């Protein structure tokens, strides 16, 4: 087993990975940008190497610096987390060249799946159903226009190297196509260092259901059930659940079998996710494969009792999968909400800033994965996700109730969050009924702020005024005794009474 592993990531996922490493007795090494030099993931690590300036391109996306950091600290393996270089062949190849273990699939599996156009070809060849679309990246405006005409509107523009909802545009009319293509390409170039974009037929009102797979180096592969991620805003997942709300067991098994087949077709190793679009008749189409840990992996962990990160490390260290498919059992229902630093009342404008207050919920069946603590800053340089709040219940209804309670318990000040939006989603009749698609959020009107009661307003105003008044008084010169003096005399008096067996016990 490894003694030291470097986590080539930041935020909540770096923190989460470190927890499993510690359980395995492995010393975690953090990397950080200058902006993150004192971040929570750095505080949790045993060692840190600063990679460069705040911009990802100059820090977290620098494979050369990350390899250098491994050599400098003696880390034997790299866990890439998700995003950043987690699906980068460049880092994977550099690891191989430097004799460092990359906790993830092989370069060839990554190449097969990392480029979405190539992935479609590979999957089609393996007999996996795919969505109709072009099989190559568009060159320019004229090219994309021709491609979209061939595929038929509405189309989805997707960054070939994309993921996590960035670099994707739904285009319904040709008039909007070229502008969307350029914007998509720009975003992709800036986020992934690759501006190539391809065209796919948009399936209307699909569900997004994905299968977690796991494979070792010895040709063993299993699927760890499904996750439903249909609650998406601008292709960004907001709420995920496991198992899917309404899916026949026959479809569930069929999707699992196809996913395992796909993994074996590319000699996959480690944790992977096969994403499918599922239509109203439960037909499913391969969407993409993520050759890494997913953001929403906690819901799978909660219903399966597995620690996916621990498994990733074991498999990367050359151990066989410790179970076979028949031994995997799911129990109960799990839901995850992504808490974003954004203002749901102002078109979800990002809201970075200092976390003047941050008290996440706790309690039985509540799991919070975060990369911040109170006093930290939610930086504008990185993803606006503050925390993932996941809950487990005996069934879906219990899980929804628990999530309501958890969100009510959360206290955040200093930034705006999407909590009210999450609450509205959880209470939406279609979500409650478990009959929703990726069109759910688009079908909702603008979020209307619930105004607080007058009594609550007055109570808050009264407290603020009293506190302001006390501070104004304290600033006034020539008072007889400061409040600190008073506190001392009150304590002394209480102590004296207690000593004498008085009433102040």
């Amino acid at each position, binding site marked *: 087993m490894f003694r030291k592993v470097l986590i080539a990531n930041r935020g909540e996922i770096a923190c989460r990975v470190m927890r499993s490493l510690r359980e395995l007795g492995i010393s975690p090494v953090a990397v950080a940008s200058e902006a993150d030099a004192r971040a929570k993931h750095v505080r949790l690590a045993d060692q840190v190497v600063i990679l460069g300036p705040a911009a*990802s391109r100059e820090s977290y996306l620098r494979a050369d610096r990350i390899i250098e950091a491994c050599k400098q600290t003696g880390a034997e393996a790299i866990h890439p987390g998700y995003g950043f270089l987690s699906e980068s062949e460049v880092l994977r190849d550099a690891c191989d060249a430097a004799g460092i273990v990359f906790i993830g699939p092989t370069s060839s599996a990554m190449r097969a799946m990392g480029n979405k156009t190539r992935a479609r070809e590979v999957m089609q060849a393996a007999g996996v159903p795919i969505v109709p679309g072009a099989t190559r990246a568009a060159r320019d405006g004229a090219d994309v226009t021709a491609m979209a005409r061939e595929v038929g509107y509405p189309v989805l523009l997707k960054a070939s190297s994309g993921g996590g909802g*960035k670099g994707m545009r739904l285009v319904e009319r040709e008039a909007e196509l070229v502008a969307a293509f350029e*914007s998509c390409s*720009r*975003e992709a170039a*800036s*986020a992934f260092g690759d501006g190539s974009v391809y065209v796919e037929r948009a399936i209307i009102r699909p569900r997004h259901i994905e299968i977690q797979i796991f494979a070792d180096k010895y040709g063993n592969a299993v699927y760890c059930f499904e996750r439903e991620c249909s609650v998406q805003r601008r292709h960004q997942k907001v709420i995920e659940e496991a198992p899917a709300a309404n899916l026949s067991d026959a479809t569930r098994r069929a999707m699992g079998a196809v996913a395992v087949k796909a993994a074996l077709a590319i000699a996959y190793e480690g944790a992977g996710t096969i994403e499918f679009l599922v239509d109203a008749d439960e037909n499913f189409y391969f969407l993409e494969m993520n050759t890494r840990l997913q953001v929403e992996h906690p819901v799978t962990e909660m219903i399966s009792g597995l620690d996916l990160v621990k498994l990733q490390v074991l498999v990367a260290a050359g151990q066989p999968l410790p179970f076979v498919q028949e031994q995997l059992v799911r129990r109960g229902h799990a839901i995850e909400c992504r808490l974003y*630093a954004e*203002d749901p009342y*102002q078109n979800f*404008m*990002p*809201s*970075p800033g200092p976390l*003047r*207050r941050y008290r996440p919920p706790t309690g039985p069946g509540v799991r919070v994965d975060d990369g911040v603590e109170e006093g930290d800053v939610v930086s*504008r*340089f*990185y*993803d*606006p996700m503050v925390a993932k709040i996941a809950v487990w219940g005996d069934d879906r209804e219990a899980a929804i109730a628990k999530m309501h309670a958890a969100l*009510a318990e959360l*206290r*955040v*000040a*200093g930034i705006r969050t999407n*909590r*009210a939006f999450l609450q509205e989603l959880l209470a939406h009749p279609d979500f409650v009924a478990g009959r929703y698609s990726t069109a759910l959020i688009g079908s909702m009107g603008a979020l209307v702020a619930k*105004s*607080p009661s*007058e009594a*609550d*307003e*007055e*109570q*808050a*105003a*009264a*407290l*603020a*005024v*009293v*506190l*302001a*008044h*006390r*501070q*104004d008084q304290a600033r006034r010169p020539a008072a007889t005794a400061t*409040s600190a003096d*008073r506190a001392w005399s009150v304590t002394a008096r209480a102590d004296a009474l207690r000593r004498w067996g008085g009433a102040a016990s």
Partner: protein
Amino acid sequence: MSITAGGSPKATYLVGGLSSDMTVEVLSDDGNSSVVRITRPGREARTLSFTSADLGDSRYLVQDLPKTTVIDALRGEKSSWTLLHGEDTFELSVRNERDTWLAHGAASAAGAQVTVAMPGKVVFVDVKAGDVVTRGQRLLVIEAMKMENDVKAPRDGVVKALRCNVGDAVEAGTPLVELDS
């Protein structure tokens, strides 16, 4: 609690940031129990007696018997306060008489400027001076937190001046585009 709260207030504050402004007079306060009188426009004044035990860490156990609530009260810059009360967040300005007087001098008229609410980088500009724009039309694109955000025209008008270029890092509240009326 029955405290006769007549007489003259010890101090008067103006509270903003709520559904309506409030005048709050502190009638008595011993560092724990307080009596205040709240006046809102067009309403009869209401007297509130409560205790506020300091739990440390800017948290207060407020008892307005029989109700008990923990309120987080964080003082910001100058007269701004953030209070977390249940699931509500109150961003208040709490001004004493002197603050109120000072604040009036700084009031400025709203201009015909398009600004953004957060810092970011200009990645695309759609318009130039002299362009006629309609409400909702995209004027430029700001990149922040790795996402592109459209900045749209708040109303119909003519672009009088463009105050930013592609590549500029802009701060929240900086005028980016000036619209003619």
